[in-house]
């Protein structure tokens, strides 16, 4: 499996599967977060829950992909080979896909920045800040600093309303059926 494919798979597994998320966390600590995407051995496939065989693990990730494709043509854009086109042509297509992807993500996850301050400005850090919310970069000492420059505001999902899918895993794997006009 290509690394990017694996990263994608893991991303969604971490997002939707508490068990995988826990494993990923142990992997990612204390190493920097970037390395989480390249573990030496791939995690075992998620165990299907016996009590709910109709909702296999990972189905939410497939439903999310299908939703983004349906509402925003997400896959159509990301599956294309950009080297074939000039920037203006890509821009024309991206504008619509971006608009619809954004509105879909906001509807499902109500995404907001972690910090409301302007990027580039200095922010104060309280004595006990949540290390999950704020990651220190640069010259990081053991002593907690009193503040620093905000380089990225961060993102946070304030809810998680992925559509519920009642079909089988095989059905969910069809992210967009082939369409035939009659």
């Amino acid at each position, binding site marked *: 499996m290509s690394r990017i494919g694996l990263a994608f798979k893991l991303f969604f597994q971490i997002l939707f599967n508490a068990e995988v998320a826990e494993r990923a966390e142990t992997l990612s600590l204390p190493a920097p977060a970037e390395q989480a995407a390249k573990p030496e051995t791939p995690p075992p496939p998620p165990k299907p829950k016996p009590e709910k065989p109709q909702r296999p693990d990972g189905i939410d990730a497939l439903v999310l992909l299908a939703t983004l494709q349906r509402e925003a*043509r997400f896959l159509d854009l990301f599956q294309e080979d950009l080297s074939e*086109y000039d920037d203006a042509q890509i821009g024309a297509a991206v504008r619509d896909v971006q608009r619809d992807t954004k509105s879909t993500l906001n509807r499902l996850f109500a995404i907001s920045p972690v910090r409301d301050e302007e990027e580039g400005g200095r922010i104060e850090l309280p004595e006990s800040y949540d290390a999950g919310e704020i990651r220190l970069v640069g010259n990081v000492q053991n002593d907690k600093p009193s503040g620093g420059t905000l380089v990225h505001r961060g993102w946070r999902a304030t809810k998680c309303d992925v559509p519920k899918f*009642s079909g089988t895993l095989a059905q969910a794997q069809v992210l967009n059926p082939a369409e035939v006009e009659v």
Partner: protein
Amino acid sequence: MTAKYVIGVDLGTTNSVIAYSDLEAESPAVELLEIPQLVAASTIENRKSLPSFLYLATEADQEGGKLELPWDDGQTFATGEWARRQSADTPDRTVGGAKSWLSHHKVDRQGNILPWNAPEEVGKISPVEASKRYLQHLVAAWNEAQPEHAFADQAVVLTVPASFDASARELTHEAAIAAGFPADFTLLEEPQAAVYSWLGHMGDKWRKALKVGDKLLVCDVGGGTTDLTLITVEEEAGELVLKRMAVGNHLLVGGDNMDLALAFHVAELFKEKNVTLDPWQSVSLWHSCRAAKEQLLQDDGPDKYPVSILGRGSKLIAKTVSVDVEREPIKAMLLEGFFPSCSATDKPERGFVSGFQELGLPFESDPAVTRHLAEFLSQHSEKAGSAIHPTHVLFNGGVFKSEPFQKRLMDTINSWQPDQPLQRLEGDHDLDYAVARGAAYYGFAKEKNGIRIRGGTAQAYYVGIQTSGLAIPGAPRPLHLLNVVPIGMEEGTETDVPSAEIGLVVGETTKFRFFSSPIRKDDKPGQMIQRWDEAEISETDSLEASLPRDDKINEPYVPVTFHSKVTELGMLELWCVSSKTSGRWKLEFNVREED
């Protein structure tokens, strides 16, 4: 069982919404109910509104639980977002705009006529049935969310356009009862609901925003319809009260017409590039045009806005084409087409052919909202004896998200009354959800004796009586109109209609032609009108009464007079009363007849 919640339901032409408030709370805290709905096969998502569309599923889509809802798995159709999407892919299997059909007198609204022009094999349904299914979905969504407090046990308010006449209200009522609404649910007019929503937002501060003598114009331009209502502020026993003064005609023009007009314009631009659009692309164009409209009409909006049509197949970028839509022509087209500056004496052009009509529904031939507004105000000024100058305006409907429309409408009215500039009502104008929220707020106020808008019936009603006299071959006997309900007849009141007796034939159905007028304020019950202007009084569905053969009635016909009643719940009832037998027969609307 006593109600725990008050529920407001906005059954819209394009979207339906449920709002609710806990009746046990001190003050109303109105929330919107999330409505689970199919967004694709087997896929359920919660949305704040239920698109008023219905997809009559193919056999393939009926299999394998694709239409399964949390509360039902035996349906053969889908309502909501999936259905809205299907209207692009399979238009012959998708019902939309059912509400507009409810008030269309020329078709059988109990007949299976929708989707209009679709082949019979899809299993067409009636406008009433479609409305029932949307409402059923909302009821089920409520019961799913609140299993302890069944919908049928709550205090429910359903909104209808102010301009819906008695028979359209009757049909809406029928659909709601069939969908599981409680028998004592209340009908409320949409523009009034918008005002209640504003009252709810303002709390007691509203008394500072409005004063005695103010006239509030509620301008509600929805997806498919435009409704104009005038409300006055009066004083009674030292308290400010709101009174509904006038209601406009039912206008079938709305935001969808605007987006469609823009889409037509842009499709022409594509045609110049030799790109012809298939129906699927046309719908996505429509969607893009709505976004373009809001951008281009902003005061400091861009001069050009690119509109793209994404390639239909999976090769998205390769097949994407785009055109630059220029701001000025669009602004001119939409503002001049829908909100042209006009004089106070202008009237809508009748018989004006516009490019964006759909067969079937009687869309307004003149889409100019401002001209309809001029006519509305001048008609009511004439009746009131002096010019009506609104002092405040409340906007409702997604169209007004484009500020220039608000501005143009206000500028136009101000040009009619330069000495008394109109104010935009202060505070929040919730353009999308005000109607449902306001309905819930009204229900709360009704239970707790809060502020109410008074006004009674929006229209006067007349029964057509054929005069007796010498029959002239070839000429129909002249028809006179007998007023049976005056404008402003209050809920919970009834009245005898004094008139000469009319003979009802026993054992047969007697039909009466039935007319309505939102304008003739001075007509009293029993008044007979011999001449009238067709712009003032329009014919609606006929009424019929059928007297059973009965031992008490030995004669071939029974002389009767009329008795009218407006129930507490806002429903109009007309009865025939016989002084001889003391019998009473209810007149029923005949909505099946085709002209």
